[in-house]
């Protein structure tokens, strides 16, 4: 085969790899998402690492999602005033704090070809009861085109935080990373702060694994596609460049 023909074949294969999604984003039906949220919080309450109040804290998003039934275009929030609250912990200074998870917005639409994730802001705050100590806060965010930074990112601080002593100086870096939803953040907190319980009681629980898998299939494929697109494509732009807002292209379009 002539060199030129070989190149055409190579280019075609490369285009195929770029075009075909490895794993598609899987948007659960709204009523299922309600069930997953409820079950994930309940399981962690049962494990003793999330406070029982949290079941009522998520009652609003649950009833909202239930009403939408089989819709695959839905959104929900968990307000910062009534977050999911983990069991209290102490830091190295013996100061008590509590991990809290809230959601300013998660919006998805399975019918949008390319990027089903429309709006995203999931917050983890380590709430200190001593108000003289700032409460660290991170959030997963889906940026918009006008914003400088990666489309999907993790950021420290941000707007709406009660304790803003560090916010202004720490709006960057925005870490280029796959998004996490409520369930994935709950698992992350469980694993990092309550490792023994997570390890012995939670992570291998079949029901728990299914809940997490559903969220992984919702949140991760988009980023995985970007990784694949850029890692596989020779001298293409870096992953970060490809994920930056001003150059972002929805991978499945």
């Amino acid at each position, binding site marked *: 085969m002539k060199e030129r023909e070989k190149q055409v074949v190579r280019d075609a294969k490369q285009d195929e790899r770029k075009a075909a999604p490895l794993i598609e984003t899987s948007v659960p039906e709204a009523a299922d998402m309600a069930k997953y949220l*409820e079950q994930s919080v309940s399981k962690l309450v049962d494990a003793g690492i999330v406070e*029982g*109040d949290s079941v009522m804290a998520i009652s609003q998003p649950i009833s909202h999602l239930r009403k939408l039934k089989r819709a695959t275009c839905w959104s929900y929030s968990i*307000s*910062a005033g009534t977050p999911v609250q983990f069991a209290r912990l102490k830091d190295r200074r013996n100061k*008590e704090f509590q991990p809290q998870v809230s959601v300013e917005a998660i919006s998805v639409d399975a019918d949008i070809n390319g990027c089903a994730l429309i709006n995203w802001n999931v917050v983890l705050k380590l709430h200190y009861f001593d*108000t003289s100590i700032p409460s660290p806060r991170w959030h997963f965010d889906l940026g918009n085109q006008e914003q400088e930074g990666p489309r999907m990112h993790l950021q420290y601080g941000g707007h709406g935080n009660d304790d803003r002593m560090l916010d202004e100086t720490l709006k960057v870096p925005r870490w280029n990373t796959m998004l996490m939803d409520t369930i994935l953040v709950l698992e992350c907190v469980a694993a990092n702060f309550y490792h023994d319980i997570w390890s012995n009681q939670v992570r291998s629980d079949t029901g728990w694994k299914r809940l997490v898998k559903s969220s992984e299939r919702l949140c991760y494929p988009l980023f995985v596609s970007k990784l694949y697109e850029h890692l596989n494509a020779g001298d293409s732009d870096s992953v970060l460049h490809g994920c930056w807002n001003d150059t972002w292209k929805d991978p499945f379009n």
Partner: protein
Amino acid sequence: MTILGCYVDDNVDELKMYSALMSRGELEFTETIRPENLGATKRRIRETHPAILALDYRLDELATESGENDYKAGALAQALREEAVDDIGSDFPIVLISTEEKIHKFFSPDKTAHDLFDYKFLKSEVVTDRGSEIAVQKLLSLAEGYKRIIDNIETKSLVPLLALSEEDWETAKPSGVDYQFQDFNNVPHVIARFWIRNFVERCGVLFAEKDIIARLGIAKSAEFEAVRQSLIESGLRYDGIFGSGFERFWRFRFDEWTTERFGRPLTSMRGDERAEKASKLFGVALEPAASRWNGRTSELFAFACSACDHPTELRNSLAIHDPGRPSFCERRRVCFDCVSKDEPLIKRNLRVDEIDESIAKEIRDGAIERG
């Protein structure tokens, strides 16, 4: 249609007085009984076929004719409840009516008899005209609620009791409720107790007025009446069992209704912002609530303090010792201000949960400043 009440008291004068005070409109406490021995008293009560039974706490203070009234209300209630398990059609609400000191001591959750009574009234509450009116409304709602439970016992479902469609209950119901309901083996007073203790008396699936005020982030005022009417007209009020005597609103409807009108969940908005929007929405001037701890109107008010009922934010509050609370009820919390004073907690027989006790101490010692 007359709803028949029966009242038992060892004091003749109080027997006449309180039976008259509790009789109003449809409700008539025509059957009044001085206690004799337990068996005889029980039989006499049953023979009257009451729709509701009121008992004075101390049935043994004054000797009656036989001199065999050596028991208190709890023993009588227990005997009646046991019989009702085998004859559910004859089950009826049993309320306690007594002085504050006695009820306070007798009715705390760790006392055995706590769960025997559907409700308790203070004698001092029913002696005023308004107090009597409110008490009668509650008594009637208890009688009507029991009737509805008994009439629908064969359905083995909560839905007919809630004035809610199946679909709406699927939306609103918290996990575990249906299973718990099935565990009750269709005993009316068990079902009634479950609903009253966990849904009427506690914030969770239903909101009381103070919970609505806290969610709206407003100060309590006469203007709230306009808000209340608006919520009722919008179909948010709970019309299920006991609702006619204990006004409540469906949480899921309130959340949905307010999120549509305010643009986002209320508890994600600052209190002053909520109050401003609420004023426009309801067409009345509503003052924002101010944190009891730091005076700010910008806090994320989320619930009513269990000691002072004032709108309170999570971050300046502590959990109350609340054993046996089901997951579908909100945990009771108190504001830092009430913790610092302590007296409001004592008055309502509350104490800070063990897990928060160290923070409570810091508040009382002044180590945590208002801010």
